[in-house]
C-alpha cells in the first residue's frame, strides 16, 4: 500500500517538475530563433516556429508537450535537425552512466573504508591523515584534478590514455577525477556517523559479551552507522550517472553532460526539457528505491502508509 502511494507521489513529482521547467522556459524572453530573426526573412522564421509548434498559444504547447512526454517522446532537437532528444540521450547516457557508476563504486568503497578507519583511530594519526585527504578532496575542483591526473598518468608516465572513450583504460582517469570529491564527502559522513555509533551503549554491550573488536565494528557498528550515509547516496548517485559537464569535456567523453549546458545557450527547448525531465525522473526513482531499501537496513522503519 505504501509503495503504491509512494509511486503515485513519484509520478506527481515528475509532472510538477516538467510543468515548472516548461513555465520557467517560457518566461525567459526570446526563443530558439531569436538570433536568426535578424538575418533571415520573416517568413522563414515563421515557418520554423510553426514546425516546432512555437506559434501556438502557450497552453496548447503545454498540452502537446505533456502528450508527447506521456508517450516517452521528448521531441526533436532544434539544434541538430536530424536527431531527436531521445536519440541524444540514448547515445550519450551509456557513457555517462558507466562513468558515474564506476565513480560511485570507487567513492563508496574507499569513502566508507576511509571514514571507518578514521573513526576507529579517533584523534590519532590515521584519523588526521584521512581527514586531511578528505578536506583536500572536497576543496580541489575536478577541473584542477583532471589535468593533474592526465599530466602524470598519461603524459609523464604514459600508463593510461590521455582522453577519449572506448576501453576500460580510457575510463580510469575520469573515474578517479570524478570520484575524489564524493569519496571525501562519504568519508567525512561515515566518520562522524561511526564515531557516534561507537559511543552507543549497545557497543558497550557487545564489548561486554567478549566479542572481538572486528566483530563489534562489523556487526554492530557499520550497519548502524551507514544509515545516515544511505540517504545522501541517492542524490549523489544521480548527479554522477547523469554526466558531468566538466569531466566529460576534459576527457572528451561522449556523454550527456554537455547537453545540460549547451541546450540552455542554444535555447533548445526540447533538449532543456528532455534533460531536465530525464534527470529528475532518475532522481525521483532513485530516492524511491532508497526509501524502500531503508526497510531492509533499519528494521524500525516499516513500509506503512501511516506515520506510526
Amino acid at each position: 500500500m505504501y509503495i503504491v502511494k509512494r509511486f503515485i507521489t513519484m509520478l506527481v513529482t515528475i509532472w510538477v517538475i516538467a510543468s515548472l521547467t516548461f513555465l520557467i522556459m517560457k518566461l525567459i524572453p526570446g526563443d530558439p530563433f531569436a538570433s536568426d530573426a535578424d538575418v533571415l526573412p520573416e517568413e522563414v522564421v515563421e515557418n520554423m516556429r510553426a514546425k516546432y509548434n512555437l506559434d501556438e498559444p502557450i497552453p496548447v504547447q503545454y498540452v502537446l508537450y505533456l502528450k508527447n512526454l506521456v508517450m516517452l517522446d521528448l521531441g526533436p532537437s532544434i539544434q541538430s535537425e536530424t536527431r531527436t532528444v531521445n536519440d541524444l540521450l540514448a547515445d550519450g547516457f551509456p557513457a555517462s552512466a558507466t562513468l558515474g557508476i564506476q565513480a560511485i563504486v570507487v567513492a563508496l568503497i574507499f569513502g566508507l573504508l576511509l571514514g571507518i578507519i578514521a573513526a576507529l583511530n579517533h584523534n590519532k594519526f590515521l584519523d588526521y591523515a584521512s581527514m586531511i585527504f578528505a578536506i583536500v578532496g572536497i576543496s580541489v575542483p575536478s577541473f584542477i584534478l583532471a589535468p593533474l591526473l592526465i599530466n602524470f598518468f598519461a603524459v609523464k608516465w604514459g600508463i593510461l590514455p590521455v582522453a577519449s572513450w572506448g576501453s576500460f583504460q580510457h575510463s580510469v582517469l575520469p573515474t578517479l577525477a570524478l570520484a575524489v570529491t564524493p569519496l571525501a564527502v562519504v568519508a567525512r559522513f561515515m566518520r562522524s556517523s561511526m564515531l557516534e555509533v561507537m559511543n552507543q551503549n549497545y557497543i558497550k554491550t557487545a564489548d561486554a559479551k567478549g566479542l572481538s573488536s572486528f566483530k563489534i565494528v562489523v556487526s554492530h557498528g557499520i550497519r548502524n552507522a551507514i544509515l545516515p550515509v544511505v540517504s545522501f547516496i541517492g542524490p549523489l548517485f544521480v548527479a554522477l550517472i547523469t554526466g558531468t559537464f566538466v569531466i566529460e569535456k576534459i576527457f572528451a567523453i561522449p556523454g550527456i553532460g554537455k547537453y545540460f549546458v549547451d541546450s540552455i545557450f542554444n535555447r533548445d527547448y526540447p533538449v532543456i526539457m528532455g534533460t531536465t525531465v530525464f534527470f529528475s525522473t532518475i532522481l525521483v526513482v532513485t530516492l524511491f528505491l532508497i526509501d524502500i531499501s531503508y526497510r531492509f537496513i533499519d528494521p524500525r522503519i516499516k513500509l506503512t502508509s501511516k506515520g506510526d
Partner: protein
Amino acid sequence: MSRLLDVNNLKVNFKTYGGEVKAVRDVSFHVDKGEVVAIVGESGSGKSVTVQTIMGLIPMPPGIIKGGSIKFQGKEILGVSKRELRKVKGSKIGMIFQDPMTSLNPTMIVGKQIAEGIIAHQKLSKKEAKIKAIEMLKLVGIPNAEERYNQYPHEFSGGMRQRAMIAIALACNPELLIADEPTTALDVTIQAQVLELMKDIQKKTDTAIILITHDLGVVAETAQRVIVMYGGMMVESGTVYELFENPRHPYTWGLLNSIPDVDGPEKKKLIPIEGSPPDLFAPPKGCPFAPRCKFAMDICVEEMPGNFEIGEGHLAKCWLNDERAPKVEQVFASEEEKAIAVGSEK
C-alpha cells in the same frame, strides 16, 4: 567461601581538557563465590567506573589506570591484553547495564544478540547457539521465546529488554554478574519483577552478583554485603546487617536518613545531605566528605582517614572511629529521633 574477585587499590583517572579527573581513588573490595555485593553511592562517586574497569570497558584514552590490581579467580585481569580479557568477559563475567532502551543493537534481532556471545565463547554451531538462546529467553521469563527470538529490540518493552539483557549476560553461565543500576530506568512495578528475576536466577545458578544501585531498599533485600562509595573512594563496607544496624560513616548515616519511610507510624521528614560532591579534578587532601560533614573535625580536612576496622569485615574510612574522637553515634541516633519528632509536629 572461595574468593572470586579481588580488587585492590584500584585507581582510575580520566584525561579531560580541564585536567585529570580522579574518578576512582584507591578502591579495594572482594566478591566471594555466590555472594551478592551491593555498591551504593551518589552519581559520580565512581561506582560505574569501578565495575567498567573490571570489564575493560573504559575507553583508553581518555581513561588511565593509575594503579591497583583486579584478580578474577586468582588471575590478574587488569592490564592484560584485550584477547586475554575476552576469555573472561562475557563468558565468566556477564554485565547488565542501566538503560535497556539503548543497550541493545536496534538493527539486530534480539535472539542473535544473545546467540553471538554464546558462539564467541562456546564451541557451538549457529543452530545450537540458537537453541541455547531460546532457552535463555525462556529462563528470563519471556513468553513465546521462539517468536521473540526473531524480533528486534523496538518490538520489546523496557522490562522485556532488560530481561533480554539479563539473558545476554547469563548466556554463558558466568561466575559473576555485574548489574550496573539494572532497574533505574524501569517502572517501579517492572523494577520489582526484574529484581525478583535476578534473585531467582542467583539462587538457581549460584552466580555471584555485584549490584550497583541507588536504592537502599533493594540493597537490604538482595545483598549480603554493601560497599558505600563517595568521591571515588570506598567510605564504608560491611555486611548488610552491620551497615544498617551500626553504620560508622556520616555519609552512610546521611544515606540512611534520606530513605523515605512509608510504612512508619509517624510522618518523618526526609533529611537531605547538604552540599555537593567533591571536585574530582582537585580532590581535597583530607576526607572527601569533610566539607559536607556535620561532625567534621580539624584533622578531617588535613589528613585522609585510614580504614578503621569496626568489626569482622566492617570497615569505615572516618576519623570519628579513632579512639581519640568524640563519640557521635549517639548524635546520629538522636537526630533520627528528632526527625521523627519534627515530622509528627506537622
